[in-house]
């Protein structure tokens, strides 16, 4: 009995991972897409994420504080990321937008050349 328990204990200790991980949704389900309201009272806000991680609004670099001020209350924000940017830069920007109150954050993907 104790032998079997010890073997099981060692098995679970060795094979399990103990990382605390979260997730960010990257794709909407088909049902959600049809039911999501698309009415946007303001002009669409498009932020460009540069290769070095800098964020641009209408061609001008914009700081995190300015982003929070511009985004507040916007139901829909679109990010146009450079494909050379790092994943962390995109996640940080999405984090900032969600924290600033953006209703939904969308990614604009340019087709590969």
């Amino acid at each position, binding site marked *: *009995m*104790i032998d079997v*328990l*010890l073997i*099981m*204990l060692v098995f*679970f*200790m060795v*094979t*399990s*991972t*103990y*990382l*605390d*991980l*979260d*997730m*960010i*949704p*990257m*794709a909407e*389900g*088909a*049902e959600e897409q049809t039911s999501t309201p698309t009415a946007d009272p303001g002009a669409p806000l498009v932020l460009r994420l540069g290769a070095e991680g800098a964020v641009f609004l209408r061609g001008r670099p914009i700081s995190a504080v300015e982003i929070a001020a511009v985004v507040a209350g916007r139901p829909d924000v679109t990010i146009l*990321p*450079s*494909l*050379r*940017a*790092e*994943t*962390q830069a*995109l*996640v*940080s920007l*999405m*984090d900032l937008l*969600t*924290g600033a109150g953006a209703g939904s954050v969308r*990614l604009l*993907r340019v087709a*590969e050349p």
Partner: protein
Amino acid sequence: MRLARAPRRTPPETIIPLIDVVFFLLVFFMLIGRMDATAPFEVTPAVAVTGSDMPGGGITLAVSEVGALALDGSVVDADVAIARLRDLLTEDPTRLVRINAHRRAPLSEVLPLVARIEGLGARDVVLVVTPAAP
């Protein structure tokens, strides 16, 4: 007349408390651990504050810093990964697909992958992140 002293009996080993402790440890490790396949290369997910708790199960596609892919722990080519995902999603389209990308992986390796997986009809595609310290 002197009677021989009865030999001192050593108390029997108490195995039951040991079983209790081991059983408790077993249940503890089963509850807090996740039986996920780990990638054969180093993957450090991006840090995020606004991530939500990740449910168990699903398929994990790991992306290394240089764009190498591993599907549920085994290194695969992108086309092979997509083919396997197509089979798995055909069986169950509601299956969760987790993309565990290294934080320094270029988006050119991650975003086209998301698009291809979406094209397979996946309803749940999520990016794995590490919760930021409060």
